């Protein structure tokens, strides 16, 4: 499969994962592995198809950061609210959104949850409560905070999870949302994926901090920094934070140190960073590290792996077929759902008097 060689390292001791995954059964460990690998392979496949010009728009690869999304999303109930940003494929795959919907979204076809009208590669799904992410940075953060407020007010036990990047933490809305969540002890977990870059902006120009978890100090709730490429650490930290949120103790901010292997989007050569830096992080690939951990635990056998790969392969094939065969949206298919109510004076418009379809 496309990126197999990229995931094929054998791990020197220093990257070995150690410790317990609290309260995680072997079945769950295996299923989590499958979702991680599925995320990786689907992303790799989409990248390839984009470079082959199979779909328009652009593509934001998450490769390298999968664990930051998948590990926490995997632990959520379907009703729990997820506020992803523009690079959060794993927020959907981790929560179990079928690949075919995601592929159709990338392709802007009518079978996309938004019917092709919104924006390619902005993965979401209404039934899985993964919100339609705003391109506009940290709006999802504010919305997820509002969802957490709503759950609390409506006395539902659900929680919200919001994702953003290192760069997004400089935005004013990041502050207003976190501050409000702190005051009202909202049931939310904030995940900051610090991949060292915001497009071409090095994190040192986003913040004077070394650990973005310290942003939480300004809001009176805990913030921790972890290796987001270490599935075991990530599992334990997110599990703890979700527990905290569900118990009514309030928000947690988790900074996950990670790295995006590819450009900001697939038209970005990313020549602002060094090959050494990229190599350094590819050595810390979260998936093979976790794979080795599972093998050492004898949770993952060659046969099991083969099955997993086969299932993933099949689902990806099906998803790509589905997307490729899903019709392109009707040219005027976006002229609907501007308003939920009817208004006598509203018209979608005309291009010259009277002619409603230009």
């Amino acid at each position: 499969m496309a990126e197999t060689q990229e995931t094929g390292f054998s791990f020197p001791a220093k990257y070995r994962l150690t410790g317990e995954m609290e309260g995680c059964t072997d079945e769950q460990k295996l299923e989590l592995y499958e979702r991680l690998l599925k995320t990786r392979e689907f992303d790799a496949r989409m990248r390839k198809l984009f470079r082959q010009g199979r779909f328009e728009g652009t593509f934001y690869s998450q490769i390298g950061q999968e664990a930051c999304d998948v590990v926490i999303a995997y632990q959520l109930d379907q009703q729990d609210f997820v506020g992803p940003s523009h690079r959060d494929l794993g927020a959907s795959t981790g929560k179990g959104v079928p690949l075919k919907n995601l592929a159709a979204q990338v392709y802007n076809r009518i079978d996309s949850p938004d019917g092709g009208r919104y924006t390619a590669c902005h993965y979401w799904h209404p039934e899985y409560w993964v919100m339609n992410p705003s391109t506009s940075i940290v709006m999802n953060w504010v919305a997820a905070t509002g969802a957490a407020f709503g759950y609390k007010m409506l006395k539902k036990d659900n929680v919200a999870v919001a994702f953003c990047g290192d760069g997004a933490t400089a935005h004013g809305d990041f502050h207003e949302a976190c501050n409000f969540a702190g005051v009202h002890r909202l049931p939310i977990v904030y995940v900051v994926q610090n991949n060292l870059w915001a497009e071409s902006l090095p994190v040192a120009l986003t913040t004077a901090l070394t650990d973005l978890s310290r942003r939480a100090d300004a809001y009176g709730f805990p913030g921790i920094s972890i290796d987001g490429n270490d599935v075991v650490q990530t599992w334990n930290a997110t599990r703890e934070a979700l527990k905290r949120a569900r118990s009514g103790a309030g928000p947690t901010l988790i900074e996950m140190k990670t790295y995006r292997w590819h450009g900001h989007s697939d038209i970005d050569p990313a020549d602002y960073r060094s090959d050494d830096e990229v190599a350094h992080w590819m050595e810390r690939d979260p998936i093979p590290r976790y794979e080795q951990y599972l093998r050492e635990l004898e949770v993952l056998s060659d046969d099991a792996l083969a099955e997993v790969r086969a299932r993933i392969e099949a689902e990806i094939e099906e998803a790509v077929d589905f997307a490729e065969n899903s019709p392109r949206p009707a040219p005027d298919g976006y002229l609907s759902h501007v308003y939920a109510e009817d208004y006598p004076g509203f018209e979608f418009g005309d291009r010259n008097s009277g002619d409603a379809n230009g």
Partner: protein
Amino acid sequence: MAEITYIDAINRTLHEEMARDETTFLIGEDTGIYGGVFKATRGLLEEFGPERIIDSPISESLIAGMTVGAAMVGCRPLPEIQFADFISPAFDQIVQQVARYYWRTNGAFEMPVTLRCPYGGGVGGGVYHSQSNEAWFMNTPGLVMVAPGSVRDAAGLLRSAIRSQDPVLYWEHKKLYRSLKDDLPDGDETLTPIGVAEVVRTGSHVTAISFGYTLQLCLEATSQLAAEGIEVEVIDLKTLLPLDKSTVIESVAKTGKAVVVHEAPKVGGIGGEIAAILAEECFWELDAPITRVAGYNTSFPAARTMEEHYMPSTVQVAAALKTAAQT
């Protein structure tokens, strides 16, 4: 049934609608403990408690933006911006997120959000307590804007807005809060339809088109001009977006003359859109230039001498109507 003020009609309707629907909550600055800087939200905290009446930090962007997630999970949010002047920090969330979310999700999530916004001058507040900012939002499909010009509509439009599945900006004029009084039957549940303008005076010589506070100037001017035998037809727009084109066109088709009146600066104000609609869809019936009586193209001044000069007056509206009528 007792006479109540415009602001009391707002307060009463908030009480009634929040009692009616447990998924509603109100969030704003000084809206709880203080009951609102104008007392529009008086008594709500006592009745509905701090879970549903939120005294927000000074975070307008949060006040507007958090409603999206809250609405998605089943709430009916009632955000308040303390002064229209401070809606600009929330502009991004309103225009980019709240107004577009239903469209973006291809109809999966409605946004039943009613954002109240006290606007307008004549209260000695200077540039940041006097603005009329409705025009900023006119180019935002997906957003609804209403602006009551009567006590009945203060209640009726608010009730309709709260029950609507669309995001509504509700513009309440500060100068009308206590100056406007009317009978409002107790328990009255009238729903003023959104998207529908009303001819509030019939006349044959010229049409005055306005809303909110400046509507009162049109009505006064109309009475004065009646004495001179000039019959003005007055339209209360009530909804600014989406505009009720047909009511406006019908009236101007009859009178042949139109004067649009608003308080915001003339250039870029909503009068432009109304004049453009008439110039495109009612052109052949026009017998005179379409004029606009509006604020000056400057910021709103503080000193009383200046403020009085800035505010459009009945005299000026009457003069414009007369000029048009006599053309």
